[in-house]
């Protein structure tokens, strides 16, 4: 498997930043990438649409055997992801390095 695409979520992802995140996710998924890592280490807020976009990318990747991993999720972002049940569906790792190993299970 090729190196994963790592997308760094910015500190606050609101409407404008969400569009950028969606573009990056779509680009990575459409390019045929099998492993995408969304790094949330610097992120303090992911808005509701951003989480929907991440979930949507996860579903599209999973449908063709790929994976979407999250890394560095903490604090309020973790709380929001948990409130929508995303943590039980996505693979979450401490670091980008950990998340970049495709065989590793959470």
């Amino acid at each position, binding site marked *: 498997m090729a190196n994963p695409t790592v997308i760094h979520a910015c500190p606050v992802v609101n*409407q404008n930043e969400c569009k950028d995140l969606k573009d990056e996710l779509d680009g990575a998924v459409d390019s045929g990438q099998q492993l995408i890592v969304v790094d949330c280490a610097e992120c303090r807020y992911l808005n509701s649409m951003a989480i929907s976009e991440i979930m949507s990318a996860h579903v599209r990747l999973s449908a063709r055997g790929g994976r979407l991993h999250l890394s560095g999720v903490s604090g309020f972002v973790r709380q929001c992801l948990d409130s929508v049940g995303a943590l039980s569906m996505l693979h979450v790792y401490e670091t980008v390095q950990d998340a970049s190993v495709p065989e590793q299970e959470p």
Partner: protein
Amino acid sequence: MSGENAQEEMMREIMRLKEELLRKGEELSRTESRLRGLLQIKDRFLSLATHDIRTPITTLKLIANIVERSADQLPDLLQRTVGTLPRNVAKLEAKVDDLVRIARLDVDDFVPELEAVDWNEQIKAAIASCFASAVQRGIELDLQLNETATVHADTEHIRQMMVDLIRTSMDRLDLGGHLVVESGISSQTGPNPGAWFLVQDNGPAFNDTHAELLLQDLTGSQQQTRVRVPLFMAHRVAIAHSGVIEIGHSSSGGIRLYAWIPLKQKDTEENPPETRHDDQHNHHTEKPIISGEVNHG
């Protein structure tokens, strides 16, 4: 009538009045005791009813989610119907919550239990409790936290006030709606510094004549009940904290809900508030400009 007889008559009258007073006092005491008993029964009933009503709703939510996840296996017509299930169950749940809260309402006795709370932490908690609903309903929920401060407030009620304002806005929005929550510290209202909380959406414009009604006592008009219950409750909490709720038009044509609470209820000048920048959000502090038609509660 001699002076002696008159005095005796007066004494008898005083004694009669004393006895009457005692009887009335005992009657009042019995009535009070009966009312207290009724209140206890009401509280017990509400507690049981709340549980009994919420339990089937929880089951209903679970079933709605399962059905929704399997919707692609259903015929087109059923798929569309099933798609509306989670939202309607969420509405039902919110309505039950409103009913329970109103039934428990005791306006005269509401005294906030003040403690030191971090303003932005309460906002995060309020956002977290509305987040799943926003995702499910396809509403974009943005958050812009400015500097935070310690506010002396009733934690549970202040958080619920924020939830109520967010819910008021969310209930007006459809799929694709956009809602922005902001916060900050200012001395805008009155001489005391306070913490503000602002919700703005891009939903449909509201009728100005309804704005005043939104904050009035629920015993008034029956109009706009869908948004009035949470807003009325939020207003009640703000007033109890010597704060305000204002309603206006957002820049995108929707509703603008603004809450302001003083940092301290007393001794503000003797104990200047501690303000600090939220290390997670380094936006500039902006005092909200009250624009459009604003109705003070």
